[in-house]
C-alpha cells in the first residue's frame, strides 16, 4: 500500500522541481494524446515548443511571445499577491476589460487632438478602471463579508456587457460604416501603444510587466507589506497577532491586482488589439490564474510561466494550422500543464511511503 506522509518541512528542492516535472509530464502525456489522434507525437511537441523560438519563422513568432506574455505576467503578478494572502480575485478578466474601456475611452475623448500627455492619461485611466472594478468585491467583502470569489467572477460578465454596450454605442467609431467597435487607436498617434523597437514586439505593456515583476519581488522579499501578505496566507491568526490589519490587506491586494489587470487591458487595447470590440477579451484574465500558480506565486516564476504559457499558445496555433491538430486538443494540453503542476505540488509538502497502512 502507498500512503502520503506530511514532511516536517516543505521540500525546497521539490518546490523548484515541480514546474519542470509538470512540463515533462505534460509533454509525455500530451504526446500520447497527439499520437492517439494520429499525429506524430515528437513532431507535435517540437512544433509547440521549438517552432516559435527557433523555427524558420521565429522572427515573426518571437515578438508574439512578448505580446502574448506581457498581459499574462502583468495580471498574474497582481493576482499572486492576493493568492499568497488567501484573497481570491478570480475576476481579473473583468478588471482587464474595464481597464481597456477606461483607457481607450480617455484616449478617444481627446480625439483628434495630439499631445504627449494623452498616453499617460490613458495609462492612469486604465489603472483606475481596473482598480475600481476590483474594489467592488473588496469593499463588499470587508463591509459585508461577501465571498470575493463569486462577486469578482460575476463582475466579469457585467464587464462584458459594458464592453458590448460601449462597442455598439458610446465608443462606436462614427466613421466605422455602422460596424461595431471603436476607432482604431493604432491610427491615433498620441494614443498608440506602439512597438518601442521595430519588430521586437516590445511595447509599454512589456516594460510595465517587467517593472511589476521587480516591484513584486522586492515587496515580497524585503517589505513589511509583502511579509504581511505571506504571513496572512500561512497563518491568518498569527498575522493578526503580529499587527496585520486584515481589512487593509484585502483592499490592497484586490486593488493592486485590479490595477495591474486594468493596465494590461489598457496596453492591449492601445497596442496589439487597437480597438474596443465586442470580442476584445480573449481570456488573459483567466489564463493568468494558471500562470500565477504555474509560477508558484513567485514573481520570477510567474515571468517564466508567462513565457511558457505564451509559447504553448503560439505553438498551439502553429500546430493547429500546420499539423491540423484540433483546438480542443491544444486546450487539453494546456489543462494538463496545470493538472500536473498541482499533482506534483503535493510532493512539496508530502512524501510517498510504501508500506502497511495503520488503522489508528
Amino acid at each position: 500500500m502507498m500512503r502520503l506522509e506530511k514532511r516536517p518541512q516543505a521540500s525546497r528542492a521539490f518546490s523548484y522541481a515541480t514546474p519542470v516535472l509538470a512540463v515533462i509530464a505534460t509533454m509525455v502525456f500530451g504526446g500520447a494524446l497527439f499520437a492517439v489522434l494520429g499525429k506524430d507525437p515528437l513532431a507535435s511537441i517540437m512544433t509547440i515548443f521549438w517552432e516559435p523560438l527557433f523555427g524558420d519563422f521565429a522572427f515573426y513568432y518571437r515578438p508574439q511571445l512578448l505580446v502574448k506574455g506581457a498581459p499574462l505576467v502583468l495580471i498574474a503578478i497582481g493576482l499572486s499577491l492576493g493568492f499568497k494572502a488567501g484573497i481570491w480575485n478570480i475576476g481579473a478578466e473583468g478588471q482587464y476589460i474595464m481597464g481597456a474601456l477606461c483607457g481607450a475611452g480617455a484616449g478617444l475623448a481627446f480625439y483628434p487632438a495630439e499631445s504627449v500627455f494623452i498616453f499617460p492619461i490613458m495609462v492612469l485611466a486604465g489603472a483606475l478602471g481596473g482598480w475600481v472594478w476590483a474594489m467592488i468585491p473588496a469593499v463588499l467583502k470587508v463591509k459585508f463579508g461577501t465571498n470575493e470569489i463569486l462577486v469578482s467572477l460575476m463582475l466579469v460578465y457585467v464587464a462584458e456587457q459594458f464592453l458590448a454596450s460601449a462597442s455598439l454605442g458610446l465608443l462606436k467609431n462614427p466613421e466605422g460604416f455602422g460596424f461595431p467597435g471603436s476607432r482604431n487607436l493604432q491610427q491615433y498617434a498620441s494614443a498608440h501603444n506602439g512597438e518601442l523597437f521595430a519588430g521586437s514586439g516590445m511595447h509599454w505593456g512589456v516594460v510595465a510587466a517587467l517593472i511589476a515583476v521587480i516591484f513584486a519581488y522586492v515587496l515580497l522579499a524585503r517589505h513589511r507589506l509583502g511579509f504581511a501578505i505571506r504571513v496572512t496566507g500561512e497563518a491568518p491568526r498569527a498575522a493578526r497577532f503580529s499587527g496585520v490589519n486584515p481589512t487593509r490587506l484585502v483592499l490592497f491586494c484586490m486593488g493592486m491586482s485590479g490595477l495591474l489587470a486594468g493596465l494590461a487591458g489598457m496596453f492591449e487595447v492601445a497596442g496589439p488589439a487597437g480597438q474596443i470590440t465586442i470580442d476584445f477579451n480573449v481570456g488573459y484574465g483567466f489564463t493568468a490564474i494558471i500562470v500565477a500558480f504555474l509560477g508558484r506565486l513567485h514573481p520570477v516564476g510567474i515571468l517564466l510561466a508567462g513565457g511558457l504559457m505564451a509559447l504553448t499558445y503560439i505553438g498551439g496555433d502553429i500546430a493547429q494550422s500546420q499539423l491540423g491538430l484540433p483546438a480542443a486538443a491544444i486546450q487539453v494540453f494546456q489543462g494538463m500543464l496545470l493538472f500536473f503542476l498541482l499533482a506534483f505540488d503535493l510532493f512539496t509538502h508530502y512524501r510517498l511511503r510504501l508500506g502497511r497502512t495503520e488503522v489508528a
Partner: protein
Amino acid sequence: MTDTPLLALSGLTKAYPGVVANDDVSLRIAPGEVHALLGENGAGKSTLVKMIYGLVKPDSGTMQMHGTSFAPQEPRAARAAGVGMVFQHFSLFDALSVAENIALGMENAPRLRALSKQIRDVSEAYGLPLAPDRIVGDLSAGERQRVEIIRCLLQDPKLLIMDEPTSVLTPQEVEILFKTLRKLSAEGTAILYISHKLEEIRSLCDSATILRLGKVVGHCTPSETTARDMAEMMVGSTLKTPTRAGKTPGAVKLDLRGLSAASPSSFGMPLRDITVQVRAGEILGIGGVAGNGQDELLSALSGELLTAAGMVGFEGQDVGQLGPTARRHLGILTAPEERLGHAAAPDMSLTENAMLTGAVREKLERRGMLNWPAAKRFAERIIADFDVRTPGPGNAARSLSGGNLQKFVIGREVLQRPQVLVVNQPTWGVDASAAASIRQALLDLAENGTAMIVISQDLDELMEISDRFAALNEGRLSEPRPVQGLTVDEIGLMMGGANGMEVAHV
C-alpha cells in the same frame, strides 16, 4: 491484591515513522488497583492506552486479561472485555440531553426512560450528581466529564482508563472525582490514571509506572515517593526549582477598568467588567477552567481585540484603541497559548517568526523595509539564550517540538525588554526542565521591573511564581488576592464563581 493480575502487558512495542512510541513496555494492574501512568508529553502514555483500548495495534508484545490473551481489534472489542476509557477531550453532542448522548454510545441502548433511571442510579451510587434530562450544552466541563464517566460505568467496566481527567476541573470537582474513583476501586474496578499532576497522583494512586521516551524507566509507590523524585524520574535529570528574591512592586503599569468586550469568536466567552491593576515587578497569576475568557483577555491586551475608551490603561495612557504594533511600541508584549498558528506561523522559518513580533522593538524594520540579517541574529539570540533545540534559525516553526517552540515564543518576547508581558499557558505541554527554565525567565523579568500577567491552568505553577492570584470565571475576574496564605479551598471557590459571596466586589 490477587496473584492473577487483571491486565498484564508484556514487551509491547509500537513504532511510528521516525519515532518508537513504546519500546518493550510491560505493566501489571491488579483488580481494584489505581495505577498511575506518568511521563512527559511524548513519553508514550497515549499510545500505550490506545493499544489497550483497541485504537492502535502493537507491533509486537502481548496483552493478557484475567490470564487469557487479549488483543482488541477495535474499541468495541475492548469495551466488551470490560475496558472503559474517558478521554481528555469529550465527544458529546451539545444539543442533546445527557441520556440521549449516553444512548448514542451504547450497543443496545434501552428505552430512554429505563436508561434515565439507570443513569440516576449510577450517579447516586457513585456520588456524581447528574440529571439525565439536562441538555449537554448547558453543562460545565466537570459535569460533561461526569457524563463520560457514567457512560463508561453503565458498561460495568473492570478497568477504567482516565486520560488527564483533572485538567478541566476546579479543585472541588477534583475532590468529587477522586471520591468516585476510590469507591470504584474499593469495589474492584482497576483504574489506569494518566496525569502529570504529581500531587494528585500521590493522593490517589496505589502504584505508578513511569515512562520516558517510550520505555519504562521505573515503578514507585506514589504515597511514599516525593513529587520531586517522581518528576526527576520522568525527566531523567535533576530539576532546578525557580528562585525568586524578595521585591517591592513599583508603580502601576497596567490598569484595567471595567474591561468588557464581546468575544470575536462565536463560541467564545465575553469579558465582563474586569478591573485590576498590575504594578512594575509584580506577577499577577490568573487561573480558571479553560474557556472562561482566557483567550479573549489576552486578545484585549495584545491589541487583537480593541476595546472601548478608558478600559485598558498603560502608564496612565489609554491604549484600548491601539493595535498590536502600537502596543509593542509602548512595550506591551504578549505570548498567546496556541503556539502554532497564533504565536508562530507554522511553515515559516524561525527567522521569519522572530520578525513576526520583533520588528518594532528590535528595530528590524526601517521605513517599511525589513532587515533580514538582523532578524536572523535576533532569532539566533533567542535560540542561544533560551536553549531552543533546533539545527538553526532557517528551520520551520512546525519542525520544532512543542516545548522548544514554546521556549522560542516566550524567549522572543522576554528578550524584547517588555514593560508589560502577558503570557497564556507559558508551560503547557512543555517538559518539566524546560518549564522550570521558562518560569525562571519570567521571574527574572519581573525582577527587572516588568509588570506581568501569567494566565495558566496549572495552579501549582501560578502558586510558584505569582505574587497575587485571581481567577477567571465566565469572563469575570475575581478580586486578586496575595498568593501567600491562599488555600486550595479558597482558590477553588474563586474558580467556581462562588467568590462573589465570600469576597465583596469593588
